[in-house]
């Protein structure tokens, strides 16, 4: 790679870093110190302006979360929610606790498998689509509009549409696969326990790839044009350009998109609930929680499962943030 391209990639990386590690991490306080009384008044006003939003968010976010964690330490039930006793960690480690429940571990396994499969497929396909979208072409506007269609369709609706297309007797997918001779007998896409989770992954990939592609496209468009020009002047082969220039430069953006999708996939509910209801073979952690909480009325036990999911996602976000900061620092160096 030429020196020009190298220097250029360094500049782009530091620009990306500047955008990502924004100034909230290191607030600039010197201005405030200069202005004294006027600044203090401004800060007071700022708190008043932020207060309504903060109060609402505390009431609908923080408070219910704390209550859920508290409920997980009790034997509360839905039929009589006011009448409960503190039972410590019984819901987690007791004889009939979460950690001893095969159904819970099945739900954890389903969720992890779903997340792993769908996020990796979505990343690969999303990268491909983003590269297509990054080319100037007459098709581009049409492609972008078409891509937004799956994204805009409500999850419930896409689950129903695909359930219909994957219907074992009358579905168009089985019809064409049979006509082409790919399968000998109709497949029960959503009922067969061997297949149903993969059908769900398929629908999720269809629905979420556009989102992934748009986030990756945003990263692609921050790659400065001079990088490509420098590479072209030096006659660098196309694949090398992608591997040595494009990929390293979009890596931070790609990682952010993957983390977003992973956190989203871990809490999947709508798709699985609509396509396969509470079926044990495909139940995700969120579906498990709702079944315990609402269908079985076990508020304490269900809250324990919800708390586990919450801490899993919280832990993962903290690890991901640390990892991303490292990547950005390396990209900037």
């Amino acid at each position, binding site marked *: 790679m030429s020196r020009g391209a190298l220097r250029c990639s360094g500049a782009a990386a530091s620009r990306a870093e500047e955008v990502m590690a924004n100034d909230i991490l290191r*607030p600039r306080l010197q201005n405030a110190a200069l202005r004294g009384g006027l600044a203090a008044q401004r*800060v007071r006003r700022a708190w008043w302006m932020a207060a309504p939003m903060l109060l609402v968010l505390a009431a609908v976010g923080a408070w219910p979360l704390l*209550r859920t964690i508290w409920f997980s330490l009790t034997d509360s039930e839905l039929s009589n929610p006011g009448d409960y006793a503190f039972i410590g960690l019984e819901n987690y480690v007791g004889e009939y606790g979460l950690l001893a429940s095969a159904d819970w571990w099945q739900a954890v396994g389903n969720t992890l498998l779903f997340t792993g499969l769908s996020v990796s497929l979505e990343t690969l396909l999303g990268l491909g689509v983003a590269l297509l979208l990054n080319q100037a072409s007459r098709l581009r506007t049409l492609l972008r509009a*078409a891509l937004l269609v799956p994204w805009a369709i409500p999850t419930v609706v896409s689950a129903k549409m695909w359930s219909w297309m994957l219907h074992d007797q009358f579905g*168009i997918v089985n019809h064409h696969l049979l006509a082409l001779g790919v399968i000998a007998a109709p497949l029960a896409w959503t009922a067969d326990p061997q297949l149903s989770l993969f059908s769900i992954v398929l629908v999720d990939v269809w629905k979420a790839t556009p989102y992934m592609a748009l986030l990756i496209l*945003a990263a692609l468009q*921050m790659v400065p044009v001079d990088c490509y020009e420098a590479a072209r002047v030096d006659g660098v082969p196309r694949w090398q350009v992608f591997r040595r220039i494009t990929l390293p430069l979009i890596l931070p953006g790609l990682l952010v998109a993957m983390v977003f999708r992973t956190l989203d996939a871990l809490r999947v509910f709508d798709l699985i609930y609509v396509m396969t209801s509470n079926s044990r073979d495909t139940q995700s952690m969120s579906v498990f929680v709702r079944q315990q909480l609402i269908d079985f009325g076990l*508020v304490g036990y269900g809250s324990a499962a919800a708390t586990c999911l919450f801490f899993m996602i919280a832990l993962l976000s903290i690890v991901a943030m640390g990892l991303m900061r490292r990547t950005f620092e390396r990209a900037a160096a």
Partner: protein
Amino acid sequence: MSGLVKAGAGSRALAPGAVPGQPRFPWGCIGYWAASLLFIFVSVFPLLYALSSSLKQGSGLFSPELWPKAPTFANYSGVFAEQPFAQNLLNSLLVAGSVVTLSLGLSLMAAWAFGRVEFRGRGLLLMLILSASMLPQVAVLSGMFELVRAFGIYDTLGALIIADLVLTLPFTVWVLVTFMRQLPKELEEAAAMDGVGVLTLVFRVYMPLLWPAMVATGLLAFIAAWNEFLFALTFTLSTEARTVPVAIALISTPSGFELPWGKIMAASVIVTLPLVALVVVFQRRIVSGLSAGAVKG
């Protein structure tokens, strides 16, 4: 940041592979067109097939041709006759509309505080708000259920409006803070000279300037509330209080034997077409809104 938004709308001729002036057989070009057309087809086909199925009836539903032999609107009239579907649509509209108004109003005020004033704890608070967007819905479910019961709003739209705010507020705040930061400082100084109050400043001076960002975030919030399923499923009981996603998920025939696929597809098309139209019209704004939220996150 601003570069990114501009790039989303720009038409930069940036083709990593396109080498001009080389008379080669255009494999790359063919591959590009094939892949693009394939993606377009796969993205759009399920909606087209739903549209086609919604126009079929009886045994016609069981033959997979795309163009129905005897198109009929019976499924569409059936959806409105057999279910309170008009009421469900109105519910969804009311919930989504209120959620958008509330979250935009609250976050615009907060965006001024976080975007234009430097104060102690600002970074920490913003991080907390961001982390609220990672909250799994089920983690607040039992606490929210208690709250809804305490307010006596179970099985009403109020429960859904309140609950949905936890989904929309974090990202409306983030995106609006991002855009608020880009506005010039001189504006505020000029307003301060005129002795204008903060609320006037935010709603009269900044809001018109932030209009594009408001449209983008408003649309995203609208779609989030319109599509919300878990809270709507849990906090409503009667058919009349349901929003559209729940109505579609729980549609059944009186006999309860086979699902009425024609009607489900008709309902799906009714719910989806307005969204798709909105998204296609506002695609650039939505793309910039999505990436603004992500890059800053």
